[in-house]
């Protein structure tokens, strides 16, 4: 009678397996903590959340720019201001992200089975660079024309140019506004969930794996 609740039964249940590998790996305190380990006390920790805040600002200013289309900012002072906000947000985003990345490197933040957290961070960095490039391609000004004609050679040289044509503004717009932000968003959420699930890596010299360097 209890066969439907047996372990073997649960293992075959896709819903149960998904719940077990996601929700049941994290407690509410992990997801929305009101305390942190005492060693989490350095300015370096601020750069992760500043990166996320910059991404949020990019999404907000980007959404505002979508309301009137890609040429709006050339003819409207309001549009130009939000284009400037979008530009400076991406500059801040990368500054914060790179400081965050190097901070995590010097903490050897992959210790304690946090390799996936590190890799998703690098993935977020890489996809952000491609997303930023498509943003530069859709400025519809001289800069975007020049970047398009130069970047095409790199992609063509690798055989990618047939599928991602930097000279096709329509394709770049759709990639920048729809597909790539979705990909970056998914990777960033995945990264954050891994951080919350595993917790903040403890200080070096404070763990038992220093000698082996095990991760």
């Amino acid at each position: 009678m209890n066969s439907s609740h047996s372990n073997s039964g649960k293992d075959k249940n896709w819903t149960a397996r998904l719940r077990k590998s996601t929700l049941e790996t994290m407690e509410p305190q992990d997801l929305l903590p009101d305390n942190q380990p005492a060693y989490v006390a350095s300015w370096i920790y601020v750069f992760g959340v500043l990166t996320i805040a910059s991404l949020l600002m990019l999404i907000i200013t980007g959404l505002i720019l979508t309301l009137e289309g890609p040429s709006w900012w050339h003819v409207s002072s309001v549009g130009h201001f939000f284009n400037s906000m979008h530009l400076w947000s991406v500059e801040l985003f990368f500054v914060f992200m790179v400081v965050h990345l190097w901070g995590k490197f010097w903490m050897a933040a992959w210790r304690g089975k946090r390799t996936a957290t590190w890799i998703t961070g690098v993935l977020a960095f890489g996809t952000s660079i491609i997303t930023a490039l498509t943003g530069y391609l859709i400025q519809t000004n001289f800069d975007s024309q020049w970047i398009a004609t130069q970047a095409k050679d790199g992609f063509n040289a690798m055989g990618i140019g047939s599928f991602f044509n930097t000279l096709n503004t329509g394709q770049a717009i759709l990639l920048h506004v729809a597909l790539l932000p979705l990909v970056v968003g998914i990777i960033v959420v995945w990264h954050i969930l891994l951080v919350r699930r595993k917790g903040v890596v403890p200080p070096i010299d404070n763990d038992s794996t220093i000698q082996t360097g095990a991760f």
Partner: protein
Amino acid sequence: MVMKVDPSKKWTGPVRPYDIIKEGVIAVVVVAVLAGGLSLLFSSPDDKAVTLKSWSNNNAADFALTTSGELAGTTTSAGYGAPYNHAANGPTLGPLKLQDWVGVHIPVDPPNDFVVTPLLMLNDANTTTALATWKVASADQQIKWATAYSDALGKAPGATSIPDVKNQFGPVPQMVTSLLAMAKTGALDGALTTSQTPLPTDFTKPLLFLADSDGYFGDMAAKQHLSGDQWGVMNETGSWPGQSWLWLFSLWYQVEPFKSSGNADTLVMTLMGLLTLALALFPILPIIRKLPYKIPIHRLIWKKWYARKL
């Protein structure tokens, strides 16, 4: 007392108060103020897009020279190879011909697409006669005419046409003159962008044509320090910061063996791909993963924690 913990286990040591929502809200406000302030102070660059019309009106001689080059097959586009045409194999990576193997997916035939087909739209008798002469000529003869005219224009800076005193240019001078007149009105921009669909979003053809111009398009970029040898990959027009995160990508183009290699694009793209993969694999790379232990920057990061233990 040194407290040894397993970093893979949940922390059970001392904690301090923390408000993740409050921290997030403060971060958003800080970024909004920073981005807003920088926008008000420095705005953002917007150099107007160039067109075939602006090119032909501002540097007619360069337009005429590039057009004759398209007919002669000597421009970058005419000799590019995949994904536009079969004119060359493109850069390689050792035995790997990645560009060539993928094949022609975005067909562009510069002499016909940039010059002959747009000219067919004109009802001018001289142009029609010139096109008729061009069409019945052999490919060798066409190249001979166009090369001779291109060479002659190249030796006459500022000239948009050269008299055919030795009868060696065939219909090429008329074709170039007609296309120049068409471009000056803006009709050529429309002809090239609408060649596939009446509501275009793809600017492959006019941009490839523009990019063949060293004397106008390339010159404008060089003045804005955007050329490859000026670290142009990471630069922006004016004095604004560009894609500074591409500094390493840009660096390789400034140094040998990449700088002078005909395969620079393939080599740099491959190298950057490998370096990105290496970055992802830092946790398992033998020497790299030990660096944080050897160079104790973590002592600064966790200064308060280490002091607390003592």
